[in-house]
Structure formats: structure tokens, C-alpha cells
């Protein structure tokens, strides 16, 4: 099976087999990262541009290394959102990159749908590296990969996503990916940070963390944007930590082999207690490694690689 789409804009709408293809391809990629010499010639002569309108060292570096490990030429463009308020710039920038022979554009943007706009106007393949509060598909995929790696499966698991679901693209991608793969998804956070309409099929919503954690196999703790408090979306950071912070005591309600995820960077002591973040049942560092592997898989598949796992 080969990758059928021009772009990767989100996990919503991806078929189960497509997600499986990416996860299966990521496994041999992870082996490369573990090697002494992390370089295969797979994407030699291919060019990848990371077009970041929002700063994110973590995601950008992850894509950049993924490209470099496969011998692609990678270029970073850090464009400040404020200086590019008009979208014609996005279209123009995309066309320029196209004309320079770019094969893949990886875009991070504060506006939901920006990658869709770009994809419509360029011949290059577009990978969404996070758009507004919409989707962050590669983060979703690395979360799925990490869960599958630890648990051996996704189907039938109960995954609790904890925190600011309303503004979280990570949550959106997780919801679609996990639902497609047959997991049960629970959302939990203060009601002011939960989506206004909860009709997303099959998702359960909680405002009491104890209930949300009951019997959970996985807890995915979202990063709390502390400036939301200044906007009055919740009263104080102190109260948030008390009401919604994940600590050892609360984790007892989960399955004994619970897995804790966090997309990072963490606000330790706010959404997650120190001893939880550093515990063996947390896979937060593993997620970072898996992020590179999953991104290698995506770049590889998009450049025509097949999912046979044959990587030179």
C-alpha cells in the first residue's frame, strides 16, 4: 500500500489502514534513529521547507532531523505571524517555494485552515505541523505510535485527554486518530476550556477529573497555555492545578499499567506533577523520539515510498 493523498492536513478523514500504514512505516524509521550513523539515502535530492509562522523549536527540529536522517535538503523559514497578516503572502510564499522546486512544505500557522489554503495553491506536498486550534496530525500520530508501542494495540483502550481541549489542536488530532483506531476517548477539563458543542461522535466529556480517570489506560495531558488565565477562561493557575492537575493520587483511579503522555513543553506542578512527569509510566521523552520516527515515515511515504518497511 502506498500513500494516496497529496498532502497531510489532518487525521480527520484518514482511514484506519492509512493510519496503520504510517505507524507501521515509523517502526523501521525508529531503528535508524537508534543507529550510530543516522543517515540513509532514501530522500537524497528531495527538498523540504519548514515554513513556521509560529515559533516551535521542538516540532521544527523534529521535522528537520527527520528530513536530514533520510538525506533530504531541509530549509527553515521562520515567518512571524504578525508580519504576515495578509494571506496573499501565504499564497505568494507558497508559489515562490514551488518555483524553487520544493517537494514538501511543512507548515505551522496560528490560523486554522492555513495549510489547506496553501495546499490548494501549491504543487508541493503540504504537511500540517499545527494550524490554530484545528489539527496537529503528526503529534496525533506520534501519540498513537507511542500508545501502540507501549500497549501493543489501540483498539479497545480508554484514553483520557486532560486540559484545555477547546484550544488544543493536539486534542483534535488525537480524537480523530484514536476514534478511527477504535479507542474510547474521554475529554476532561474546566467547562470553560471544553468545546462548546460536544457532539463529536463517541467522545465522552467530564469536568471532574476523578471520573475521567476511572479505569483509563492512557492519560494524555495537554499543555495549559497560562495566558488563558489572564483572559479569564479560568480563575487562577493555583485552582487549576488543584482541580485538574495530574498527580500520583489521582492516577490511582486509572488502570495499574496506565500510560501518561504530554506533548510538551510541560508546566510542571500545574497540569502535571513532577513525580508523574518523571515516572516510568510516563513516555514523555519517548514521544519526542517517536515524533522523529513518525515524521520520517510521513516524509518517506509522501515521496513515494511504499509501506513495505524497506528502508535502505
Amino acid at each position, binding site marked *: 500500500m502506498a500513500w494516496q493523498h497529496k498532502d497531510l492536513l489532518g487525521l480527520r478523514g484518514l482511514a484506519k489502514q492509512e493510519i496503520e500504514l504510517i505507524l507501521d512505516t515509523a517502526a523501521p524509521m525508529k531503528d535508524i534513529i537508534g543507529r550510530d550513523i543516522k543517515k540513509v539515502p532514501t530522500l537524497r535530492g528531495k527538498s523540504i521547507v519548514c515554513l513556521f509562522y509560529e515559533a516551535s523549536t521542538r516540532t521544527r527540529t523534529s521535522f528537520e532531523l527527520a528530513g536530514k536522517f533520510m538525506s533530504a535538503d531541509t530549509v527553515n523559514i521562520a515567518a512571524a505571524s504578525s508580519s504576515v497578516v495578509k494571506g496573499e503572502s501565504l499564497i505568494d510564499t507558497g508559489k515562490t517555494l514551488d518555483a524553487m522546486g520544493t517537494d514538501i512544505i511543512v507548515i505551522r500557522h496560528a490560523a486554522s485552515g492555513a495549510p489547506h489554503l496553501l495546499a490548494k495553491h501549491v504543487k508541493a506536498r503540504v504537511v500540517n505541523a499545527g494550524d490554530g486550534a484545528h489539527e496537529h496530525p503528526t503529534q496525533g500520530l506520534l501519540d498513537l505510535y507511542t500508545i501502540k508501542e507501549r500497549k501493543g494495540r489501540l483498539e479497545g483502550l480508554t484514553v483520557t485527554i486532560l486540559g484545555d481541549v477547546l484550544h488544543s489542536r493536539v486534542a483534535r488530532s488525537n480524537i480523530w486518530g484514536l476514534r478511527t483506531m477504535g479507542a474510547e476517548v474521554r475529554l476532561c477539563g474546566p467547562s470553560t476550556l471544553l468545546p*462548546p458543542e460536544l457532539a463529536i461522535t463517541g467522545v465522552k466529556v467530564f469536568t471532574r477529573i476523578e471520573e475521567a480517570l476511572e479505569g483509563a489506560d492512557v492519560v494524555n495531558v495537554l499543555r495549559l497555555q497560562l495566558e488563558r488565565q489572564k483572559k479569564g477562561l479560568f480563575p487562577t493557575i493555583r485552582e487549576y492545578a488543584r482541580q485538574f492537575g495530574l498527580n500520583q493520587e489521582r492516577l490511582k483511579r486509572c488502570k495499574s499499567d496506565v500510560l501518561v503522555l504530554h506533548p510538551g513543553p510541560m508546566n510542571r506542578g500545574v497540569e502535571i506533577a513532577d513525580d508523574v512527569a518523571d515516572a516510568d509510566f510516563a513516555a514523555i521523552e519517548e514521544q519526542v523520539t517517536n515524533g522523529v520516527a513518525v515524521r520520517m515515515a510521513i516524509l518517506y511515504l509522501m515521496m513515494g515510498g511504499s509501506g513495505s518497511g524497506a528502508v535502505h
Partner: protein
Amino acid sequence: MALYIKGGRVIDPANGINKIADVKIEKGIIAGIDDYSGAITEADEVMEAAGKLVVPGLIDIHCHLREPGLEAKETIATGTRAAARGGFTALCAMPNTKPVCDSQTGVEFVINRAKAAGLVRVYPVGAITKGSEGQELAEMADMAACGAVAFSDDGKPVPRSDIMRLGLQYAQMVGKVIISHCEDPELAKDGVMHEGYWSTVLGLRGIPAASEAIMVARDILLAESVGAKLHIAHVSTARSVELIRQAQWRGVNVTGEVCPHHLALTDADVEGFNTATKVNPPLRTDQDREALRSALNDGTLTILATDHAPHTAEEKACEYNYAPFGISGLETAWPLFWRELVESGVMTLPSFVAAMTVAPAKRLGLPGGTLSTGVAADVTIIDPEYTETVTLENWQSKGKNTPFVGQTLRSWPVATIVGGRVVMRDRQVIG
């Protein structure tokens, strides 16, 4: 010599007429509706209308012509061409131009430009407050005296209740209607689409339905307390409809209008991030759309308007968040309303025609909206069987911002006559 429109179905709700007949126009005036087969001479001009509908010229009480100041989006000349193509013989132009039409000079400018364009009638709506900034009343009496037909800060609400109350009182004094854009600015802040399932899925900031209904409720209470005439622009939510219905039962002088896109589309159409679907108030849910239909069916809402809001292609070719609100609506209004209201049986043909002619005219005290003998001959001829696929090729408005491109619609205006002069024939604008 006379112009005869021969053999069409003449629908003139103002006079209870709905029959096959000829319309006789002489010297720009309706001279009668009758069987004139024996009276036509070789010198007369005859428009064959068999199988077509002959109705009073359509009146749009809510559109944006963008001149002065925003001529890249639209001018009075291009906007009136779009109107003629859409079967409209008269428009009310909202005052949110640059500068805002908030003075006698502004009103006179629009009237003069429209005269120069000379295609369809344009009635200026004046601002309620200076600069539409919501702080001080604009010179409404002066504007009324020189031709403003109503007052509105459309494009935004009047946020302060005290100012809105003064505006209603003052408009009442000069005998005009306040057209209210109902939106709680804090609740709607930074929103780009309806708040609900689809805003959740798309990760776009939502505009809650309550942001409209809250202001509808406020304005109804204010209008009621001062005995003023209130018209709610672009009603989009079920709750707003309910509030208007209850107010009318109490005897409040309140009316409301519905736009084509709020009937033809829902928030689900935002999927794909097409900025042509970005409009304020936003596309709502199926239930809201159903509520609008029933309100048109039971007569709670009696007026159909376009909220024609043209923008340049460049302004709309961007991220959804950054695009301006608005759909260019004059040229597709009739067939969309037809599909949503006539073909689906929501309105009878006469009440539908009334909602686009006599009802808006009566509400704002405009001339026209009827085919009564002796009035200016503003007439629209519709071919209910004619189908056309919406393309931008023949589009007259500068604003190409329509989400309906590619849709094949039935029932189109095929002739527009203003004061006896044919300004559109066979879908082509003349002059």
C-alpha cells in the same frame, strides 16, 4: 406608444393580483393590467412573457455598495449593474462606507452617484451614530430631510443601550425605522463562524447564537419602551425568531429580514475553509435554518434581503481568520430564495413576491413594490423554468465572493424594467 409585457403571470400582491394578463406601460408609468391583445399597434414595443412571471420590481432593503471609499470592492455603478442582473429595481445602501454615511453630504453623495449611474434606484440608509462608532447620534433629521430612508450602524451593533435608546427615539421622531445589526460584541469577539459542532471540529473561533439573540431582545425591549419602529437585519438564529414572534404578539413594532445564504447554507459548509462562506452573522445550524423557514411561512418574518457584501478577490484569498465577512449576493438572490422557499413549499408565490417587493417598500416607506396603475413602472420578469449555472464570467458585481459558483439554479430574472426603461434583458444588463 406603449410598452406591453404580454401574456405573463402577473403577480402583484399589493393589489391581490395573480393572473395571466398583459401589463401596459406608458411614459414610464404603469398604465394598466388587462387583456390588451386588441389594443397593441405596430408602434408599440412588446415583450413576450408567456410562461414567465411578471412582478413588481424587486427591492433589496439591505445591501452594501461600498462607495465612497471602498471602490475596489464595489461602486454604485457596478453594484447597480449587479442589482439589475439580479432583477432588483431598487436598493437600500447601508452606510458603512469610508467615510460612513452619517451626514447630509453623505446621503446626497449616494443619491447623486446613483442618479449618474442611472440604472436602478438607490435609497441611502444613514448611520445612527457619528462614524457608526456608537457614541453620539448622527444628524438623523437632516439626513431624513434629504433622502435617507432609514438608519443603521449595520456592519456592527450599537453596543451601548443608552445610545440605542436615543437612536430609536430620534428615528421615531423623524418617522423612520432603525435597522439593527444585532450582535453582542464581547460575546462575538474574534469569532469567525457559528459556534457549535463545526467550529469545534475546524478549530475556528465561534460566534455563539446568543450573541445575536441577546441584542435582539435588548433592541425589542428598547423599541417597545419608546414606541419606535425596529427592523432586525439578517436574522439568523432560532432564538431571535422566537423573540421577534413574541414581541409581535405584544404589539411591538418590529420586523425582520432573512438573507439567501442563511437559508441555502449552514455552518457545515465552512468545512474546507472556503472564505466565501465567511459571513456575519455566520451560517448557522439546520435548526436555525428551519426556524427561519417557519418564520417566513407563518409571517413572523416578512422581508427577504440580500446583505450583498462585496469584497475583492485578494481580500478573500487568505486564511479564514483574516478574511473579511460577506457574500456578494445580489445576482443569485432570487433563484436561491426560489429554491429554498418556493420549490420547497415554505411560501406561497404571492407571499414570496410580497417579501421581495411590497413588504420592504411598506416597511421603509419607499415608493414602488406594486404594479398599481399610475406608479412608476418598475417591473421584473422572471423565467421560473430557466436554469443557469452560477459562474463569475458574467458577474456584474466587483465582489466575486460567492460560495454558489458552480451551482445550477432554476428560476432567474430575465428582464428588469426601471421607470419603464429596460435595464436588463435576457440576462444581459443594458447601459
